[in-house]
């Protein structure tokens, strides 16, 4: 029952433990934890605006000051994780690259199982694409796939008459390190796909 006890214990507010701290710094600690939680849970770059929304503020400046404090505390620990600022004011919590090799073999979970991944690949390649087209190419299971992809924030839809128009999201682009610009991204996909196509002549198994 270890973890559960642990869970129970941790349900009490840790902020009340540091009795010497002022309430202002309590709030600060809590804000930092919220930003850390957001970065940890998503595992992808977040904009200041998103971080601000977790903090309940519209001030990018305030969001920046909190995330920079978290970044600093990570820097001073010299652990395995780091917070990195990317261009256009986005921040990401990630494993330091030099540790990736040592632990890569332990990671076994794919982002998606093969069915939904194929559906995602197809949507990415043909986007913006009408849902019914995806269904007729991928079969009726693809309804489930699309729902999973939407829940995961990898695909989004827009009503288009009586059907839906599907496209990938920024989360998708960030995950695969692809351009946020649709045309550029499709060009990227096409060129990689053509290279792979030429190199491997054997077909891959069916769904």
């Amino acid at each position, binding site marked *: 029952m270890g973890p559960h006890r642990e*869970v129970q214990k941790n349900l009490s507010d840790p902020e009340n433990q540091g009795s010497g701290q002022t309430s202002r710094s309590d709030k600060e600690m809590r804000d930092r934890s919220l930003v850390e939680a957001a970065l940890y849970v998503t*595992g992808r770059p977040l904009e200041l605006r998103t971080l601000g929304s977790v903090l309940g503020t519209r001030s990018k400046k305030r969001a920046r000051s909190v995330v920079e404090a978290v970044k600093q505390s990570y820097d001073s620990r010299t652990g395995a994780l780091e917070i990195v600022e990317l261009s256009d004011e986005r921040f990401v919590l990630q494993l330091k690259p030099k540790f990736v090799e040592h632990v890569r073999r332990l990671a076994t979970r*794919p982002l998606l199982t093969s069915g939904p991944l194929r559906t995602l690949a197809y949507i990415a390649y043909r986007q913006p694409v009408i849902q019914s087209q995806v269904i007729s190419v991928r079969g009726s299971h693809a309804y489930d796939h699309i729902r999973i992809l939407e829940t995961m924030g990898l695909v989004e839809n827009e009503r288009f008459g009586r059907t839906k128009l599907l496209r990938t999201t920024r989360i998708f682009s960030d995950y695969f390190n692809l351009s946020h610009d649709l045309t550029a991204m499709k060009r990227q996909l096409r060129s990689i796909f053509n290279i792979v196509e030429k190199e491997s002549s054997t077909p891959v198994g069916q769904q």
Partner: protein
Amino acid sequence: MSDTTSNITEKPFWLRPPWIVLFDLIKLRRLRPWDVNLAQILTSFILEMKRQGYIDFTASGVALLSSATIYRMKSELILKLQEPPRLPRERTVDFIPPPIPIPFRYEYTTTTLDDLITALEGPLKIEPNALSTQYEVTELVSPPPILEELDAFLTEIDQHIDELNEKIQELLEEEASIPFSLLTIGLDRLDLIRTFLMLLFLVSDRKIDLIQDEEFGEILIGPPSGGSEELE
């Protein structure tokens, strides 16, 4: 029964509720067959005719035809796999534990861009075919709906029957006979009916035999009895 007396006396009794349902042939096609309790209506129809002291064969014939039609509608609905209306739902009351608070653990996922690209190969290969068939289909005159429904049912039922048969044969290796109720634990009403229909198919294919010792007693499923006649 609130009609005026003059009307009641002029009309034969079966043109009144509840028997009218069997005699209004125009409305018949539109009614919900599940709303009609045939056994009750027919029994009271016969009783009423006996009570009034004469038999009208035309009326009996129409009642027979209508009953058959209603039965047919019911079986068609089951073939179409339409759910019969549920009995007022008894929501089972059971202890529901409180939700467990699940912590979140980030997991480094292993899917790479290469995986995505590889995953693209299958769909793109199927695409030309899938899209062109779709257009062909929409341009074709569609078959009458009843055929489509039967087709869908029949393609699916073969698979279900095979699965059921496999399961039964497995069980029969250990037991001489299996009670029907064992196969239907936890099934809802529709699935129960479907299972029974599939058993009938298996009987007619002589894959199994059904034995029921007493009316409303347990139905036992056994191996096909060698030279015996078909079950009635």
